[in-house]
């Protein structure tokens, strides 16, 4: 089980701030493919991965990163702080 978090317009499109996901996905890209196959709202949110960033256990990461040992995955758009 991993905790999956969504922020900003990803949270709005998917309609949830977080959920627990039972998955055997090996990489972030595999998890995205799994979620996108579930329902249209996921496919829509993940349609353009160039505008999506991912953090694994609260550290910025990449879509080809492995999920082994990861407890928390977060998806969000490019950050706009400051």
């Amino acid at each position, binding site marked *: 089980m991993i905790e999956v978090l969504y*922020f*900003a317009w990803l949270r709005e499109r998917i309609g949830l701030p977080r959920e627990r996901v039972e998955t055997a996905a090996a990489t972030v890209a595999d998890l995205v493919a799994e979620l996108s196959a579930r329902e249209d709202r996921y496919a829509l949110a993940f349609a353009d991965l160039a505008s999506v960033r991912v*953090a694994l256990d609260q550290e*910025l990461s990449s879509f080809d990163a492995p999920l082994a040992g990861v407890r928390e995955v977060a998806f*969000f758009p490019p*950050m706009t*702080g400051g």
Partner: protein
Amino acid sequence: MRLRLQAEPFALGAEAQAFAEAQAGAGAVVTFTGLVRDNAGQLSAMEIEHYPGMTEKAIGAMMDQAQARWALEDALVIHRHGRLLPGEAIMMVATAARHRAEAFAAAEFLMDYLKSRAPFWKKEFGADGAEWVAARDADEAALTRW
């Protein structure tokens, strides 16, 4: 080195004063403040979302890096989240160093990193509805100079 994330407004003058007064070995204090910009009177409010936990980690790492690189005496970051009105202060950075060049450089470094590597997202509310603020290529490009 202190970081504060808060929904409430902060008093810029009082924060800057307290920060400067706490310095013993510094000869220079630089402060920067970011405001909610009202684009031609079109903005009614801004909402800032963040990622509790990662925000603290990411900014803490930036502050550690800045301290090591410019031998800072001290640094302070205050960043707000939640609903803000035009003209309100979003955040402030203060740096203290022995000399001004280090204090300025470290403040700019922290600002550049806060813009693109701290997990905050801004949403603008106006007469035509609400829109998430898009990240600017220039902000990402600014990181290459460090």
